[in-house]
């Protein structure tokens, strides 16, 4: 079974339908909303598998289906659908992970009064995300992109009665909006210079050779190729969505939403949309690499930003105490990895990591959700602890996720995808710095994950909530197990021995890269060693002497209070932004308002006052000089009027008489005049 590209719209349409149903069901229609959402997702998953099947039969081609949206002059604005392995793999991943998370949410959210609303928003999100994946037009992609942002906004603010949730939702929307404006400008520029927004259009698409050539051919005054500028603007959007430095600040706050939301949107799928966008636009982004004279290449920027983000995220994660925030910063860091991979030229590696990350990060978040649910919404790892005996399945799956994330060798998927990225970075000939940053992050990742597991599951329960925790239903653990299986197995799709996934994605022949692996064998060993170092350090600091009470000081804080404080406050980015962007904003607003009220309004008022003043002046002059004469004249007119009005006797006889006499006189005049 395959799914032709014309019917690709079915995949996003089904969840959209479910969202519509969810929006219209009353509050007591819980099962209808949830059931339709899950059913839609399941069918979408099956359809995605069909689509994947079709795409894999001809991996090198881009099947497109373009259609007109509305008329524009003699042309029309056209949108389109696209089916290639990238789309298909992403669709399968999103629908599968999404399906599991939906199932998980069935139990997780069952206490919530807005249950049906939740599934409505989730379905809306899924629809938008899938639409984003199947889009063959930057415009359609942008539309879905924004809708994804809307869904994210709604879901972060799902518990809108909490001021923190409301604020976080707004922050997420605004921050990503900054990036989106970049994307919008890039899109406008692209549209303006190439006259189309379709990715592939039989040779006229923006990602096809003719257009790329013309785009790289034009240079701006500063020496940048137009394609570089557009690429950077598009990357702005990607950075906003994927939480890249400096727009990463919203992602940790987004953890105010329900945990399944965090798992689906802020770990597995939406945040990866930025990576997907860059991968999708890779021909455009990489078009300028051939121009040697360019001051900077778009991908170089991507690589450095990715490296910096990977490092920063990992660092800050070490200082967080909220189980979800640790994972959130870990997500930031991993997204940095992916961007790094894109920047250094291996978009297949980036997508490979994206897929594996989706599984294990979703696993980790759901595991965290399971813990939180069991511990009655206690999220602080210092107050948890001792959960291993109480929640065996959760612990086992969480551990698998942790090892996958840390990159424990050979068995876990994270290892393979991360190795692919590190190798790509190693082979990048522009700068070694990204490689170093990546390697450092490997250590840190292993370290903070060890810390997290040790604090959460080992030792003794440090709060009543943790003491009373017990394993959850199969509805929640089932998805965990499935995701854990995926987190283990998925790695084998792209091992260097048999890089099937990469080959299918890029549409090239399958050939083993074992030789390359061994050529840089040192790197492999180094990274394995670094993972081990991280694990050991973590265990040494946190596992050796287990925490006894929640108030106990963190070993790291003991070692270096200043570093810990800085890390815990997320290196002060929020404060920095509040002091700069926020301040600037309110200042501009005050300025604009002031300009309005006092300067322009004042001017107008002055004019008005001036008018009143001159009016007064002229009245005075008029009254003293003109009016006098005028009064005289009008008095005489009135007098004469009074005199004449006496003719108006009111006596009807008089009038009648005058009429009759006038008639006589007139006739006489006529007769006399006529006779003459």
């Amino acid at each position, binding site marked *: 079974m395959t799914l032709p590209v014309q019917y690709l719209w079915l995949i996003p349409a089904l969840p959209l339908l479910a969202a519509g149903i969810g929006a219209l069901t009353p509050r007591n229609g819980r099962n209808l909303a949830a059931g339709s959402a899950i059913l839609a997702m399941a069918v979408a998953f099956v359809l995605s598998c069909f689509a994947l099947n079709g795409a894999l039969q001809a991996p090198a081609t881009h099947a497109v289906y373009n259609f007109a949206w509305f008329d524009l002059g003699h042309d029309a604005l056209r949108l389109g659908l696209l089916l290639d392995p990238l789309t298909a793999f992403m669709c399968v991943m999103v629908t599968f992970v999404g399906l599991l998370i939906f199932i998980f949410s069935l139990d997780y959210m069952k206490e919530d009064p807005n249950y049906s609303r939740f599934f409505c928003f989730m379905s809306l999100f899924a629809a938008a995300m899938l639409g984003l994946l199947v889009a063959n037009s930057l415009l359609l992609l942008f539309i879905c992109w924004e809708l994804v942002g809307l869904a994210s906004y709604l879901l972060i603010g799902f518990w809108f009665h909490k001021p923190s949730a409301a604020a976080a939702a707004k922050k997420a929307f605004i921050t990503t909006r900054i990036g989106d404006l970049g994307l919008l400008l890039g899109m406008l520029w692209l549209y303006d210079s190439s006259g189309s927004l379709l990715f592939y259009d039989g040779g006229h698409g923006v990602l096809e050779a003719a257009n790329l050539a013309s785009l790289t051919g034009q240079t701006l005054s500063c020496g940048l190729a137009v394609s570089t500028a557009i690429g950077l603007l598009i990357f702005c959007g990607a950075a906003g969505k994927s939480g890249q430095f400096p727009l990463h600040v919203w992602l940790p706050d987004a953890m105010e939403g329900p945990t399944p939301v965090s798992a689906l949107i802020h770990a597995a799928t939406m945040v990866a949309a930025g990576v997907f966008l860059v991968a999708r636009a890779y021909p455009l982004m990489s078009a300028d690499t051939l121009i040697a004279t360019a001051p900077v290449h778009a991908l170089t920027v991507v690589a450095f930003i990715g490296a910096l983000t990977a490092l920063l995220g990992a660092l800050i994660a070490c200082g967080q105490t909220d189980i979800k925030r640790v994972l959130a910063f870990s997500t930031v860091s991993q997204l940095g990895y992916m961007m790094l991979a894109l920047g250094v030229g291996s978009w297949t590696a980036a997508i490979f990591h994206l897929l594996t990350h989706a599984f294990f990060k979703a696993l980790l978040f759901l595991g965290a959700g399971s813990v939180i649910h069991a511990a009655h919404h206690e999220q602080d790892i210092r107050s948890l602890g001792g959960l291993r005996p109480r929640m065996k399945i959760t612990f086992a799956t969480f551990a698998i996720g942790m090892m996958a994330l840390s990159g424990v060798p050979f068995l876990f998927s994270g290892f393979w995808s991360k190795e692919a990225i590190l190798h790509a970075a190693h082979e990048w000939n522009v700068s070694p710095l990204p490689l170093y940053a990546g390697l450092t992050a490997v250590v840190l990742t292993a370290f903070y994950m060890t810390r997290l597991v040790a604090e959460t599951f080992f030792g003794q329960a440090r709060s009543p909530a943790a003491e009373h925790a017990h394993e959850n239903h199969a509805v929640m653990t089932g998805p965990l197990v499935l995701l854990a299986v995926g987190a283990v197995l998925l790695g084998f799709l792209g091992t260097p021995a048999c890089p099937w996934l990469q080959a299918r994605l890029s549409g090239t022949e399958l050939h083993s890269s074992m030789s390359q692996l061994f050529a840089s064998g040192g790197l492999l060993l180094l990274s394995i060693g670094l993972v081990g170092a991280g694990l050991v350090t973590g265990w040494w600091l946190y596992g050796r002497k287990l925490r006894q009470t929640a108030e106990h000081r963190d070993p790291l804080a003991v070692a270096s209070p200043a570093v810990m404080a800085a890390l815990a406050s997320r290196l002060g980015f929020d404060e920095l932004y509040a002091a700069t962007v926020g301040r600037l904003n309110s200042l501009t607003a005050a300025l604009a308002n002031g300009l309005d009220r006092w300067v322009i309004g004042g001017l107008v008022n002055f004019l008005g006052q001036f008018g009143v003043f001159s009016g007064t002046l002229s009245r005075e002059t008029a009254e003293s000089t003109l009016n006098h004469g005028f009064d005289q004249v009008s008095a005489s007119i009135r007098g004469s009027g009074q005199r004449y009005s006496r003719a108006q006797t009111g006596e009807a*006889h008089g009038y009648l008489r005058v009429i*009759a*006499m006038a008639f*006589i006189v007139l*006739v006489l005049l006529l007769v006399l005049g006529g006779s003459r």
Partner: protein
Amino acid sequence: MTTALILIAILLLGSAAAAMLRRNLIHSALLLIASWAGVAAFYLWAGAEFVAFAQVLIYVGAISMVVLFAVLLTRQNPVAELPAEPASRMRALTGITVAVCTAAILSAAILSSKFTPAADTAPQTSVKQIGLELMHRHGTALLIVGVILTVALLGATILAATDAKEKPEDRP
């Protein structure tokens, strides 16, 4: 023919003149009605029987009633009947003078003009023909007259009606 006309004219003018001269208003009104009837007779004589009947129906049947009602409703106290003051005598004099002058001028004009001798028989006009003429060529005018009559009726009612506000207290 002419004899009949002269008889009619005597009735017509005589009653009209008498009406204008009588002090008693009711007599005046009744004499006027006679005069109107005379006009109707004239119409009959001229062969316009439809108009004659309309004249009788409207003037003798309707307007006369309104006039009589008005006379009765505005009856003056006989005691307050004022003797003719000099001003009114003056007015009467000038009025009659003016009327006589007009009559003189008009008569002179009529007598000095020449008319082509007319057909001996009246133009044959059936009621149906009048109706068709009214509805077709004069349809607009007919509508307008209808509106005028309605408005006049309503206006007259409103003008003549007493204020109804005093009524409720009368009720027990």
